[in-house]
């Protein structure tokens, strides 16, 4: 079986072939240079003729991203989310009744004393109607 290992003298011999190849670099013809130049100018001209609205537009963020930036970025989003959750919690607490709501509100507002929290009856006449119904019924 033949030994195929590359010996230093083999490398030297190959190097002489490579050196000959480097000294005889193939040169492009003038015709090729002219064709390449014509392509280059045609590519530039084609780009000039494309209407601006047809060219690739620079990157624009999506609607949510624009909203986020308009509100002041992620920290503002966090505040908005906290406010939303608080509103939801207040809404859920309402069916507990006036005491429940007042207790929740005072606890939430960290006022300690429920006397500082005002409860306003927006439709006081309903109390009278309920009382009448109860007496008559």
């Amino acid at each position: 079986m033949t030994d195929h290992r590359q010996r230093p003298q083999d490398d030297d011999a190959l190097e002489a072939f490579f050196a000959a190849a480097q000294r005889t670099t193939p040169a492009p013809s003038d015709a090729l240079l002219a064709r390449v130049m014509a392509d280059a100018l045609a590519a530039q001209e084609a780009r000039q003729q494309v209407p601006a609205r047809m060219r690739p537009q620079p990157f624009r963020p999506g609607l949510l991203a624009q909203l986020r930036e308009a509100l002041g970025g992620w920290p503002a989003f966090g505040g908005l989310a906290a406010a939303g959750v608080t509103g939801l919690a207040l809404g859920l607490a309402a069916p507990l009744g006036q005491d429940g709501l007042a207790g929740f509100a005072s606890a939430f507002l960290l006022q300690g004393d429920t006397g500082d929290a005002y409860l306003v009856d927006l439709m006081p006449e309903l109390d009278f109607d309920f009382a009448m119904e109860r007496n008559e019924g």
Partner: protein
Amino acid sequence: MPFDAHSDEADHVLLRRFATGDAVAARILTARLTPMVFAHAFRLLGNRAEAEDVAQEALLRLWRIAPDWREGEAKVTTWLYRVTANLATDQLRKRRGVALDSVPEPADSAPSAAEGLQDAARNAALSAALADLPERQRQAVVLRHIEGLGNPEIAGIMDISAEAVESLIARGKRALTQALAGRRADLGYDND
């Protein structure tokens, strides 16, 4: 039409100017890059007409991609070597399906007289031996030993590891040594 490749500006800077419609940048890039691309195509294909077509197509792709060129990702020449090699590979596959008459031509810019003749003969022998190598081995050997690139850049062009480049080159050189062994006496190397 005179072509002047002399400019201190880097390829990517010229390409940016090209993308804005600068005709001077187009002229400098044409003069600077066409010889490199053509020579590489010729060494991979061994045929002038095919190499010219491949070189024109590779550069056309560069002109088209110029407006979207992203600096810092790859050198312009690295990108061109890769595109040229891919186009040459496609050309070789087409050639196999058509005819076997494309004997490699020797490179044709001989330096001068006797030395030039001997170089041309040696180059022709090398071209023929290179043509018999598997495509990837030929590409790696040409990039390293004729174009003179370093292994890291070749790895980038061929999209393989530096170790894989070493392996391809080693196998390619062993095959070339065997192929050229019988030609060394003819070409005067035993007297060197």
